[in-house]
C-alpha cells in the first residue's frame, strides 16, 4: 500500500463529518468511537471498556476508550503526537503502574480476565504481555544475557542447553541470529541501533508472551532495518497478538489488519486497516491520514 492508497483515501466517500474547523473544536465532537471497535468474544484477546488515564494533578490523558484487540492480529495505533497512544498501550501491561501519580480506571481484560483484578499479578501480566520500547534499550550485558534474562527470570529453561535453544530461536525469529551468532558474548549495547531494536524484540519474544506491545519500534531506524522489523512483525503474528504504535501511516497500512486512530486522548475510529485508509468514517481520521494535520 503506497501513495495510491492515500490518494484513494482522499477521494473516498465520507460518512461522518462534523463541520470543518480548528483542532480544538473537533475534540468536542468525538462522542464515541466510529468504525468497528468491537469483536466477537472468542476472537478477542484484549477487551477494554471505559478506560481513562490520569497523570499527576488529575491531568487526563485518555478519555473513555472502548476497543477490542483480536487474537493473532496486528493492530496499529496512529494519531498526532501527544494524543495518548503510548499511554493507552502502557495500560495494557500495567506499565503505567510504575509511573508515580498515574491512575488508570476502567475495565481491561486479557482473555476475559480483569488485568486489574485482585488475583492478577502485574509481573505475571508483563510476562504474558511483552513490550518493545520506542528507543532500543538493551541491557548493558552480553547479547546472550540480554535474551536469556527473561527466560532465566521466569525459570523457562531447565538447563543451559534449553536456554541456548531459547536464545538461538528468539534471535532467529527476530532476524538477528545470523549477524550476531559469532559474538553472543559481546555487549548488546555495541550493536547498531537497528540491531539493538531487534535484540530488544528477541528479548521480548524469548519469554513467549501472548501479546507484544510495540511503541514506535522503528522510529529510530533506517528503511532497511525497518523493513526487517516489519517482516518480523508479519511472521510474529502467527503466534502473537501485536499492538503497534506508529507515526508512519505507510507502515500501519503495510503491516496491520486493524487500525485505531487516537485524537487528544480519545479513540476516534477503529476499523480494518484497508477501510481506515480508503474510507475513513470520521473527518478527523481523514484529515490525519491525508496529512491535513498531525
Amino acid at each position, binding site marked *: 500500500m503506497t501513495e495510491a492508497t492515500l490518494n484513494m483515501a482522499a477521494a473516498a466517500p465520507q460518512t461522518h463529518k462534523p463541520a470543518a474547523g480548528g483542532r480544538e473544536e473537533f475534540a468536542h465532537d468525538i462522542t464515541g468511537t466510529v468504525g468497528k471497535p468491537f469483536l466477537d468474544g472468542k476472537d478477542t484477546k484484549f477487551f477494554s471498556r471505559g478506560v481513562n488515564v490520569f497523570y499527576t494533578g488529575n491531568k487526563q490523558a485518555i478519555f473513555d476508550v472502548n476497543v477490542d484487540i483480536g487474537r493473532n492480529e496486528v493492530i496499529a495505533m496512529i494519531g498526532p503526537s501527544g494524543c495518548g497512544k503510548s499511554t493507552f498501550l502502557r495500560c495494557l501491561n500495567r506499565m503505567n503502574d*510504575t509511573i508515580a501519580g498515574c491512575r488508570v480506571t476502567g475495565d481491561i481484560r486479557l482473555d476475559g480476565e480483569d488485568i486489574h483484578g485482585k488475583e492478577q499479578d502485574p509481573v505475571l501480566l508483563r510476562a504474558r504481555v511483552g513490550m518493545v520500547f520506542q528507543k532500543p534499550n538493551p541491557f548493558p550485558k552480553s547479547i546472550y544475557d540480554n535474551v536469556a534474562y527473561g527466560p532465566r527470570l521466569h525459570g523457562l529453561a531447565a538447563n543451559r542447553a534449553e536456554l541456548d535453544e531459547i536464545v538461538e530461536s528468539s534471535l532467529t525469529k527476530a532476524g538477528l541470529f545470523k549477524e550476531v551468532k559469532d559474538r553472543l558474548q559481546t555487549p548488546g549495547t555495541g550493536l547498531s541501533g537497528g540491531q539493538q531494536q531487534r535484540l*530488544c524484540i528477541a528479548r521480548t519474544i524469548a519469554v513467549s508472551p501472548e501479546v507484544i506491545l510495540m511503541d514506535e519500534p522503528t522510529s529510530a531506524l533506517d528503511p532497511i532495518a525497518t523493513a526487517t522489523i516489519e517482516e518480523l512483525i508479519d511472521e510474529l503474528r502467527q503466534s502473537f497478538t501485536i499492538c503497534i504504535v506508529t507515526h508512519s501511516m505507510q507502515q500501519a497500512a503495510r503491516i496491520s489488519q486493524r487500525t485505531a486512530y487516537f485524537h487528544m486522548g480519545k479513540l476516534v475510529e477503529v476499523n480494518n486497516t484497508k477501510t481506515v485508509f480508503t474510507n475513513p468514517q470520521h473527518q478527523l481520521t481523514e484529515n490525519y491520514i491525508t496529512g491535513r494535520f498531525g
Partner: protein
Amino acid sequence: MSTTITEKVRASLGKRYAREKRFRAYGFISIALSLMFLVLLMFNIFSKGLPAFSSTYIKLDVTLDAQTLGVTADATPEQLRTASYNSVVQKGVQALFPAVEERKQKKALKSLVSGDAQYELQRMVLADPKLIGTNQTVWVLADDDIDMFHKGYVDRTAPEADRRIKDFQLVWLDKLEAEGRIDSQFNTTFFTRGDSREPEQAGILSALMGSVYTMSLTLLFAFPLGVMAAIYLEEFAPKNNFWVDFIEVNINNLASVPSIIFGLLGLAVFIQIFGMPRSSPLVGSFVLTLMILPTIIIASRAALKSVPPSIREGALGIGASKTQSVFHHVVPLAMPGILTGTIIGMAHAVGESAPLLMVGMVAFIVDVPHGITDPATILPVQIYLWADSPERAFTERTSAAIIILLAFMILMNLLAIVLRKQFERRW
C-alpha cells in the same frame, strides 16, 4: 549567510578565542599551583619522615652471667622474666668506657642506650635460656638523642648549653663511631610496636591496627546501610510524600553537621546509654558510620538517578519485579557512582579525628589492639599526639606516621578504584 552576518561573526571570533585562551590559562595556573603545593607538602613530609624508618643501634658486649642477672641456673621462666637485665646492660656500656668513674657520667653512659636494651636481652634469654652464662655481642637500640645525633640533626658547633648532646658525650660517640659500634638499621620497632613515651621505642602498629579495624567496620556498616537507604529512597519510597521529603532534607542537613557533633552523639548514645566499650574501634566505627552515611546516601542516590529509566522499563517490560529490575540492572549500573561516593566518605573518615576524640580514641595506646572492643587509637590521632610531643625524634615519627596514613589511604582508594573498574560497563 549574508556578508554582514559573516562580518559580524568574524569580528567576534578574535574575542571568543581570546576568552577561550584565558580560561585555559586560568585552569592551567590553578592546576600548576595546586600541584606545586602538593609537591611542597610531599617533599616536606617525606624529607622529614623517611629518616624515621631507620634507627640507630649500638653494639654491646655483654656477659649474661647468672650472678649479675640474679638468677640461678635452674630458674623458672617467671624468674627469667624478672631477672636484672638492667645491670647487664649497665655493665656492658661501662665496659665500653672503663675510664668513666664519676657517678653522674656513669648515668649518662647508661642513657646512651635505650630503655629497650634490657628488654631486648630479656627477649633473647627467654627465647633461649641456655644463653645464661655466655658472652654475647648484641646490637641494642640507642637512645633517641643519640639517634638524632647519628642522623645528623645535632650541630656540634653550637654552644654546649644549646645541645642535648654534651661535649663529653661527643667524645664517647666519636669513639663508638671509630670502633664501628654505632650503626643505622631498618626501624622494625616502628612497624611492630604500639606507642611509647620513648620515641625510639614508639611504633605505629597499634594506631594502624586501630585504623584498620575502625575503617573495616565503618565500611561494613556504612556501605550496606547507605546503599540500602539510597535504593529505598530513590526506587521504592513514595514520591511527594511528606515523610520522605522530611527524611531527605534531614539527610542533606546531616551531611553538613560538624563531625565533632557526631562524636558527642556517639559518646552520649553508644557509650553512656548502650554501655559499649570506650576507646574501642567498634564505637569509633559507629560514629564514623553516622558521619559518612549522608555522603554515601547522597552520592548513591545521584548515581541511581542517573541510570536511564529505559533500563528499568526494559526489565519491567519482560516481567521482572520491581526489586529484580533494581538489583539486576539499576544497582550494577549505579555501582561505579556508589563506589565513588563510598570512597569519598571513607577518605573523609580515615582522616577524621575530632569525633573519635569524643569517644576516647585519643588514649595513649601501647598494646596493639587484637579485637574490635580493645582500646585503640587511630592514625590521625596518633599523628596529633606525636606532633604534640616535644622530642625531636617524635617530629620525624609524626611525618613517618603521615606517610603511613597516606599509604593506607592510597591502598584503600586503589581497592575501590579496582572494584569500580570491575563494574564500569560500556553503554
